[in-house]
């Protein structure tokens, strides 16, 4: 078990390094840097001035060195000009002699957002918190709903209830967030139908979460995932229901309800656990779309702003968070699966 964990962990670190390097490479391509120089130093500067600005701010160094600096394993660059020493790790008004040698992600220095003019760590922390609230309510709605649908559909395969719920599941998996969000807003928040039960934006929810400003975004994110988890649960449930021990229990005279609740449910819920964990990366996409649609300024909104405004440090920060979430959920789902399912042994 320990060797398995260690191997998984090492693969994870290697994957994270590769992914962040790819993101670093793609965000630091020459056209991006040129655009950065023009937004920082004025849009009408000449090519020579762009080159000198990049040189002065440490962007002209080799890619690997810059990646190492950002990561915090290569000492930050320093530069002496006319007796003034500047450097990656030397903040304004800081004595160059006391400045740290390394300042990268590993040291907790995520850089400074060029668009928001604020430290990336601070910015990310705030917006991640907002997304955390959204995700929490999504989970609260999605997990019980999808498991219930899946179990109800799977306990009597081929019944009318099964057909109805399965069609519903297929319909939700065919409805991406930007479609369901638009339909939900039009039905429940616009003058078209005139229901106006909920608000069409979730901007107010950043201050105070209420039912009418938060229900629609939560439902929008939850719906797309619900169908998928429900289908997995249904498949797992139908498989369990045909097992020998279920038939034995029925023949012993245990009531159908008891068989489902006591005998089938526990074994049927192992597979959906993995699926729910692996839904996190998918939810990340949903969150970006939904936050944009409902103008809720969470992590997804930040990612869109960072990408749209060529904010390299912030975009890198977002990628680190996204990659981290994906890899950690993969690890948890693998380890959890082994714990939940005694039939799987790792040697």
């Amino acid at each position, binding site marked *: 078990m320990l060797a398995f964990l260690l191997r998984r962990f090492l693969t994870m670190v290697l994957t994270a390094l*590769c992914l962040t390097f790819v993101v670093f490479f793609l965000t630091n391509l020459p056209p991006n840097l040129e655009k950065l120089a023009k937004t920082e130093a004025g849009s009408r500067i000449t090519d020579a001035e762009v080159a000198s600005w990049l040189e002065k701010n440490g962007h002209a160094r080799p890619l690997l060195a810059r990646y190492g600096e950002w990561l915090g394993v290569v000492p930050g660059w320093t530069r002496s000009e006319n007796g003034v020493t500047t450097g990656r790790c030397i903040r304004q008004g800081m004595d160059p002699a006391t400045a740290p040698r390394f300042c990268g992600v590993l040291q907790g220095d995520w850089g400074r957002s060029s668009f928001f003019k604020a430290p990336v760590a601070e910015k990310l922390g705030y917006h991640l918190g907002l997304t955390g609230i959204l995700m929490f309510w999504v989970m609260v709605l999605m997990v019980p709903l999808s498991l219930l649908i899946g179990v109800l559909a799977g306990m009597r395969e081929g019944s009318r209830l099964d057909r109805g719920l399965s069609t519903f599941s297929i319909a939700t998996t*065919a*409805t*991406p967030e*930007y479609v369901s969000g638009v339909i939900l807003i*039009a039905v429940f928040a616009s003058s078209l139908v005139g229901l106006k039960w909920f608000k069409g934006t979730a901007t107010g929810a950043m201050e105070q979460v209420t039912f009418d400003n938060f229900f629609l975004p939560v439902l929008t994110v939850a719906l797309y995932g619900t169908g998928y988890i429900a289908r997995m649960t249904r498949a797992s449930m139908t498989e369990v229901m045909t097992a020998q021990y279920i038939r034995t229990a029925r023949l012993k005279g245990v009531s159908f309800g008891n068989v489902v609740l006591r005998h089938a449910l526990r074994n049927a819920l192992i597979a959906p656990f993995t699926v729910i964990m692996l839904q996190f990366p998918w939810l990340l996409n949903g969150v970006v*779309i939904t936050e944009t649609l409902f103008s809720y300024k969470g992590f997804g909104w930040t990612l869109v702003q960072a990408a749209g405004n060529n904010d390299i440090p912030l975009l890198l920060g977002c990628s680190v968070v*996204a990659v981290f979430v*994906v890899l950690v959920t993969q690890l948890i789902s693998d380890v959890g699966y082994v714990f939940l399912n005694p039939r799987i042994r790792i040697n």
Partner: protein
Amino acid sequence: METLGWGGILLAILGRFWPVWIALVLTFAVSARFRRRLGLYGRLYDSTIGMVGFALVMFWVYTAVFAGGIVTHDVLGQVSQLRNDPPGAALPDGAGFYLLGGDHLGRDVFSRMVAGSRIVIQIAPLATLFAFMVGITLGLPAGYYGGRLDTGLSFLANLILAFPVILLFYLLVTPEIAETGLPQYLAIVLFLFPLAFLVVLLNARYHVQPARRNWMVAAILLIGGWAYLSLVSAPGSRVAVLPAAVDLIDVPSNILIVFVSVVFVNAPTVFRIVRGLTLDIKTRDYVAAAQTRGERPWYIMLWEILPNARGPLIVDFCLRIGYTTILLGTLGFFGLGLSPESPDWGSTINAGRKLLTIAPHPAIVPALALMSLVLGLNLLADGLREESLRD
């Protein structure tokens, strides 16, 4: 002229789609007549769900084919009086109606929705097919040989899968990236796979008949190679291998980026599916028999394993076209790649969402269109799965 009521709108729309109805009825009549001779496709007509799905999919396919005859107005033509007008609004000069209203620039929502189907139907199946070629060409040897090759390829696939799709799109589909020529380099790599796949496929089969093999492979290399070169090269960009005169297929650079990134996102999942199926099938007796006969590895992979993996692959192909449609919509929704004027569904939803609470119809119409197509594909996949499991 007065505005149309809901009944009038419905009748007018049904009337506009007349070529689609005729084509649908013909398709169903002919297929149902000969269904016993049509294999898996014929058995689809035994399942209600599959038939409904197939009808939805074919509706959009025929709409895309006959789009030129269905649209009522110019897709880009603006009539400023009809800005955000509700469905059924009459044109001021009496030249007809905006059947599903006007959008924020006074363009016809109905015509844009119909024209948008053409973009989706052109890109989504083709991109999925390319992703399948890439996934199959890499997944078969990874599953068959195992070992280092498998470890390496699986690691790469997991690497791409660990990327949140939207982040990848935001990184790949930007004007800055296009400037560096990176999408074209990616296209060079990704488009090579279908060519390699076809050559290896035929070579493995007709290896024992060199004369036949030679002219077949030569024909594929000539036609495919020319198509490949004219697809990747664009005059005036970083990759301009072919002179403009021979470069017949000219894909606009923004469409190429969209296409490449969608293939890139889909290929690793296909790879994993094919690899899993190969691992399962290679333990079967007929594979062992082929090995004993002395068949070569690529023959076994492509002509013994692949045909026996076709059931799950066909089902996944349908599902994946739906997923690709969703991805294309996502790209349009974020205004990535496709031009803002383009009538594709994602871009129209994006344009319409700003006024959603006042005038929802410009966003609702393409949203429902996209949903019905994806739903159709999912139902079709479900029907196919059921029918292929039956034997």
